């Protein structure tokens, strides 16, 4: 890895160099009733709209690589016959400007499932192919538990990662494109004093985490506590509304619907991101529902994130971004659920 430093004021020029392509970054979305600023990812055309000091976005950046709805294929019906067309989309390059480590790690995890398996997802691959990622350091929020999930820093999956120090940006350069990009701005190698300040900033950030999840032996504990009564208590609170999955950067489960146009000339197969917390997630042909009760569905979401995925990939699918807990009206948060299950162990 190469390190570079440049004055904070140069960032605007960096943005301008990239601006010929579509840039997506954190923007101010509005304010809540207490005047707290709410952020989300959106296309950024003006540098001043980019809020790199954002706390956390309400939604993840998922819609740019796993859209809530997308056509898997379309059909043309003609003369009693039909033809299928597939458009994998995603041909336009995309620049993410200001992803936090949690969201970069979310992409890395999704890559393992959606690109690394025996049946790669072509739609996701196409969206991923022309992505350029500028990461940005963050200030841990009270709900952030990425440190517990080992996703508080990103070691790959970005082109450039910026850490703001006093007056300068300390840049980690991971790709040739990022290296050449920096040739466009006033940029130099860091000196040993800047190395020290960088490490100091990392240590300061480390000390700021409040929320924690004890993940030691968690896969085993989840197996032992499969019948723990505490699941029922969380299930009673759960609204089965799917919000947690919708805001999650790594929830990739989906349903498929077929639609026929009213003129019977066209049809399409549409994929819709779904949530394992929704009532009919485990409904199968013939009408049987394997998880009719709210707590069984909620439990399986935790088992997928913190047990099944760990078994398959030796890491959790949760990146600790805290969005699900922040958005859950019933106040169900990952640190609390895991702690309560661990406590069931007596």
């Amino acid at each position, binding site marked *: 890895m190469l390190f570079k430093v440049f004055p904070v004021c140069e960032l605007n020029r960096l943005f301008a160099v990239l601006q010929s392509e579509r840039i997506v970054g954190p923007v101010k*979305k*509005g304010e*809540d*009733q207490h005047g707290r600023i*709410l952020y*989300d990812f959106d296309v950024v055309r003006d540098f001043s709209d980019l809020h790199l000091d954002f706390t956390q976005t*309400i*939604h993840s950046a998922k*819609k740019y690589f796993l859209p*809530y*709805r997308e056509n898997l294929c379309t059909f043309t*019906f003609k*003369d*009693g*016959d*039909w033809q299928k067309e597939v458009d994998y989309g995603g041909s336009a390059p995309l620049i993410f400007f200001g992803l936090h480590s949690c969201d970069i790690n979310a992409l890395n995890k999704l890559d393992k499932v959606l690109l690394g398996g025996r049946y790669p997802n072509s739609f996701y691959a196409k969206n991923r192919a022309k992505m350029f990622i500028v990461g940005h350091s963050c200030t841990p929020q009270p709900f952030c538990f990425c440190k517990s999930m080992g996703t508080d820093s990103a070691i790959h999956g970005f082109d450039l990662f910026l850490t703001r120090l006093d007056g300068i940006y300390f840049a980690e350069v991971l790709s040739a494109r990022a290296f050449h990009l920096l040739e466009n701005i006033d940029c130099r190698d860091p000196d040993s004093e800047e190395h020290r300040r960088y490490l100091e900033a990392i240590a300061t950030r480390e000390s700021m985490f409040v929320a924690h999840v004890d993940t030691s032996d968690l896969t085993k504990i989840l197996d032992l506590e499969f019948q723990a009564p505490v699941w029922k208590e969380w299930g*009673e*609170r*759960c*609204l*089965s*509304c*799917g*919000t947690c999955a*919708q*805001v999650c950067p790594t929830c990739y489960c989906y349903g498929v619907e077929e*639609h*026929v*146009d*009213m*003129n*019977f000339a066209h049809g399409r197969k549409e994929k819709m*991101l779904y*949530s394992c917390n*929704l*009532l*009919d997630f485990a*409904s199968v042909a013939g009408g049987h529902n394997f998880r009719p009760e*709210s707590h069984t569905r909620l439990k399986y979401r935790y088992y997928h994130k913190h047990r099944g995925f760990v078994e398959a990939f030796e890491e959790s699918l949760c990146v600790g971004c805290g969005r699900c807990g922040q*958005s859950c*009206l*019933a106040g169900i948060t990952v640190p609390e659920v895991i702690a309560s299950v661990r406590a069931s162990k007596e």
Partner: protein
Amino acid sequence: MKEGKTFLGVPVARPRVAFFELSSCEGCQLQLLNNESTLLDFLSLMEIVRFREGMKEASDDYEIAFVEGSVTRKDEEERLKVIRKQAKVVVALGSCACFGGVNQLKNRFHDLAWVTKEVYGSFPIDTQEVKPISAIIEVDLEIYGCPVKKEEVERIVTLLVLGEEIQHPQYPVCMECKARENICLFDLGEPCLGPVTRGGCDAWCPSNRMGCWGCRGPVPEANLDQLRIIMAERGISREQMLDRLECFGGFAGYLASQDGIFGKKDTKEE
């Protein structure tokens, strides 16, 4: 059934369809006419033989009956029975037909004679307790919403004509609201029935910064007890929540089951 279209080489019958209105604003039918860009395709699916808002002719020879509105008079009950006799398929169109709709708000008063006098004064009309059409006749299909969402009606009618199974979303409004990346209305300090109301409207109201009023009725297994806690935690009064739950009649079953908390004692007093 005449000059049917074909789908994948198989002839598809073009059913004769009639639209009826009981006590309602007829806004659901207007919604269908509003969709100019797809209106011709919509009309090509079926032969409309009765549609008061769109044509003068009116035939009593139909296979599918769309009924908008709730039952508030004796003669409407009789009309419904005739429709049921004629139609192979009866569709309740919109929240009034499905749940009683806004009309059923008057049911909260004990003394309906007093209501009639208060509203109509010295011009009394025959009006009774408001009922959904399913209280009078068997209904084959319900299309929810106040008003109905035209895209959804088009999808359902297409399936109906093709003879496919029709499924309503089993998830609440939140699911679609999140997909539209709206700010949660609760974060803005507003009550919203999104977490307990059946989706399929594409979060129409919340996307326009208005909390859901539950016009599509409850999602199956709606967790209303938790929503009550959520509202209370945010300082939203029981009356505000009650106003919304009562508005369209979809939550009548829940309200009746909560006697003493949200039940008749609360709702029927003036």
